[in-house]
């Protein structure tokens, strides 16, 4: 399959117009010593052949029949209408709205996205989106460093380990030091970030405290107290949140968060082995000129028609070059459109239903394991929709269940060596009672 339209006659005509004898002449400027010596790719495939190849790969995956795996990526219903909207060619095959007169569809949808994210988070301004939640968190932390002119950040160890790794990579660039705030992860502990531990890590050299709500283990953190602890030292609070939980949990704007970052995948974006997802970032208006990434603003044309444009571009790399707030160029516009469509399709009631059902089924799961004598909750504190359970021989049983197409959540031991025999189990609105029965039965059948 090729997608080039030219006939031999077309090519001849074009070569004649150009005044060269062959296409080879157009590549004469490549020095002979560095021309490609080989191009060893497989043969072309027709559509039916390439479909067979992709079906082969898709069939090699075994999508679990029962899964309690979350740990930062969640299996939610993706309403059919979301796929319909983002599948439209006019959105999918356009690019960055450099010409706003013919990009109002993309621009207005981003303005609506920014509005929805502000509503959800209780913040004043949201960007047009980032690569994913981890990079949004990293960019938020670097922004806090610019705002405070400080070069250290404090990060709770109950923040998603993947997010912390990406933070470490981004901080290595400008040489920002990361101070760990140890969460209370002992068996029988709270599973939360102790406020006094945060206070100990904070001083007038620390730009921000990064804390996650709910945290990596599902626990409900004392965010207002953590915000106070940060502000007492003149530091910012970067709140890393899960968007569906915000139907139930206090919005970061209400507890004093200065910056908000989130993985937007739960809002209508398929798991797709880890991407593309969408990073959300929100802040207060007084910090807008230090925000990285694109922003869309409303304005009007000469006839008084309302329209939208990319704005405050003086922050960005194509204007500022080496002095830009970030090197970020694109956003994740189509994924942001999926989130916009999702939030609009479910509305405030639907989002609350998703959050409540997820919470109920997480509690149902914990209760079922406790009742069956298979495990007990590791942490005492209240949780949202993910729960850490102590289960004897967790790793071996996790592997045994996987062979039967059941994923018994996530094993945090790899990132937290002290958390042996812990299963991190996530529920969503798609978790059925029968799934919980299946998990219990399968765990019973193993030791």
């Amino acid at each position: 399959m090729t997608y080039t339209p030219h006939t031999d006659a077309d090519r001849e005509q074009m070569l004649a117009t150009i005044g060269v004898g062959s296409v080879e002449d157009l590549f004469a400027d490549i020095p002979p010593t560095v021309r490609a010596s080989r191009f060893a790719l497989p043969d072309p495939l027709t559509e039916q052949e390439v479909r067979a190849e992709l079906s082969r790969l898709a069939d090699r995956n075994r999508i679990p029949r029962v899964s309690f795996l979350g740990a930062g990526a969640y299996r939610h219903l993706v309403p059919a209408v979301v796929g319909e909207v983002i599948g439209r060619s006019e959105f999918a095959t356009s690019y960055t709205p450099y010409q706003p007169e013919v990009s109002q569809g993309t621009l207005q949808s981003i303005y609506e996205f920014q509005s929805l994210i502000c509503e959800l988070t209780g913040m004043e301004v949201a960007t047009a989106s980032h690569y994913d939640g981890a990079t949004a968190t990293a960019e938020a932390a670097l922004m806090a460093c610019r705002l405070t002119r400080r070069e250290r950040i404090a990060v709770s160890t109950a923040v998603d380990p993947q997010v912390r790794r990406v933070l470490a990579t981004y901080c290595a660039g400008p040489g920002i030091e990361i101070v760990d705030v140890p969460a209370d992860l002992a068996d029988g502990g709270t599973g939360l970030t102790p406020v006094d531990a945060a206070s100990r890590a904070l001083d007038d050299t620390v730009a921000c405290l990064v804390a996650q709500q709910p945290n990596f283990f599902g626990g409900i953190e004392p965010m207002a107290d953590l915000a106070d602890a940060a502000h007492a030292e003149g530091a910012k609070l970067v709140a890393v949140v899960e968007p569906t939980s915000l139907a139930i949990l206090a919005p970061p704007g209400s507890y004093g968060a200065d910056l908000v970052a989130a993985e937007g995948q739960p809002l209508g974006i398929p798991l797709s082995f880890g991407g593309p997802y969408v990073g959300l970032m929100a802040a207060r208006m007084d910090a807008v000129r230090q925000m990285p990434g694109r922003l869309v603003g409303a304005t009007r044309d000469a006839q008084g028609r309302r329209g939208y444009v990319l704005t405050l571009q003086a922050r960005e790399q194509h204007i500022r070059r080496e002095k830009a707030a970030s090197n970020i160029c694109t956003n994740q516009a189509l994924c942001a459109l999926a989130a916009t469509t999702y939030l609009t399709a479910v509305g405030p009631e639907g989002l609350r239903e998703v959050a409540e059902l997820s919470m109920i089924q997480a509690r149902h799961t914990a209760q079922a394991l406790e009742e069956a004598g298979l495990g007990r909750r590791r942490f005492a504190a209240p949780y949202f929709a993910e729960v850490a359970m102590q289960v004897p021989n967790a790793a071996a049983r996790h592997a045994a269940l996987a062979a039967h197409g059941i994923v018994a959540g996530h094993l945090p031991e790899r990132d937290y060596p002290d958390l042996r025999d812990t299963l991190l189990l996530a529920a969503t609105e798609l978790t059925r009672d029968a799934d919980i029965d299946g998990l219990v039965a399968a765990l019973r059948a193993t030791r």
Partner: protein
Amino acid sequence: MSVIEREATGDQSGRGAAFSGAEGGGELQVVEPLIFAASRRGRRGVRFPAASERASAAAAGQPGIPAAARREVAPGLPEVTELDLLRHFNRLSHLNHAIDLGFYPLGSCTMKYNPKVNEWAARLPGLADSHPLDPAELSQGSLELEWLLAELLKDISGFAAVSLQPAAGAQGELTGLLMTRAYHRSRGEGEQRTTVLVPDSAHGTNPATASMVGYRAVTIRSNERGGIDLDALRGALGDDTAALMITNPSTLGIFEDQIDQVIAAVREAGAIAYMDGANLNAILGRFRPGEAGFDVMHFNLHKTFSTPHGGGGPGAGPVGVSERLAPFLPEPLPLLVAGDADEVRRNAWAGQSTDGARFALEEGGARPHSIGKIRAHTGNFGMFVRAYTYIRSNGAAGLRGVSDDAVLAANYLRVRLADAYELPYDRICKHEVVFSGRRQKREHGVTTLDIAKAILDHGMHPPTIYFPLIVEEALMIEPTETESLETLDRFAALMLDIADRAATDPAALKRAPETTPVGRLDEAAAARRPDLRYVPVRE
């Protein structure tokens, strides 16, 4: 509980919305009201089932959410039906130009046709429902696809190793420079090598990335032929140079015909040779940067390998590296842990089963010199599916043809328009050609912006304008290989007509566009008084 009330009484126009971005100027007209304007309390789109009695009873025995952590007022999301929603977004979609509607010669962006079979593949449930943290034995298809795509990209680029992880070209650059720094540090030269050389024709991301890594960007001037000035480069190279970042072909659409000497000079100085792969669409099968001696390059899967641009993302920016940078690649890499690599490739290329082979993600810490993770998980997998589908569809012959026809089309337009517009670098180009509108500006007061806006009235997208920065009134045209000769001729005719009209009726060009949903927008007002969100009216 709703906090949404209509922003204006009774009418659907959205007039009176929370608009504050510009001052004065009469009554506001709205092309498509915000979705918030359609909200009516109690309207529903998607509904979810109620929890079973058993689940509710079980949950009752578990701790709830403490009052202090609860939300008091529901978020002001719109309350609409699915039909309201669909009509709104469909109407919005009609306000966009897109590849699937018409010609889109946006230079440097490679707006080629995005084949629909790629979309079909990305939506296969076996791939779309694959969780990134599923046990490897359940994810063999996803892992194999990543491994195979990396193999294909190695073949295409001539690099020793590839990481798919970076989410976009700019993130690929960041990855490349972090590896560069880690490399110099591993040799005890981390402190001494502090500068990154960047030609004056470079994308803004190059110097911005250098700053993010703590490097100082030093600009190298171009010569009168549009190439890098070799003497200036040699003068700037030293034992403080960490890397040269060079786009090749350059943003002028010109292949650097001294690239062998450029690479040799950079390597001799002990620096890393970074190639920005933005313009790879011009050289498939002709030039393999890894083979030629570059150390690192990012690919733009959304350009060269036809994944849709999506209105500005998601993209994907894998990096290829030479042997000496391979230890520093982001982790984890997908690995073939059981089976013979040649046999796996042979079978996969022949459409045969590879079931005997096992794949796994590298363990954390397996490569102690890795720069770590640059984003969560292994990258924008959905884009990998599309790019893999595209590369397999085309094969070697198809990809070579892609570049041949892309270069042919750009040179055709170069010649067709050469009399009407100034050509600052009048020589064979690659996949794009950069004209200057300075004659139109000087003689008729018609700017490149006016020319771009005039194009909008004819169902085509303008070229990239005012970039690269070293060309006054730049018009950067990238036609791509997927546009027919008839389309190229229509565009050429339009550009010639605009050049005529610049002389005969410049005022009309200043008024353009007149047929688009909105006219030229007041960007200064948007920046002066930022209106970045709608605030729902609360009860």
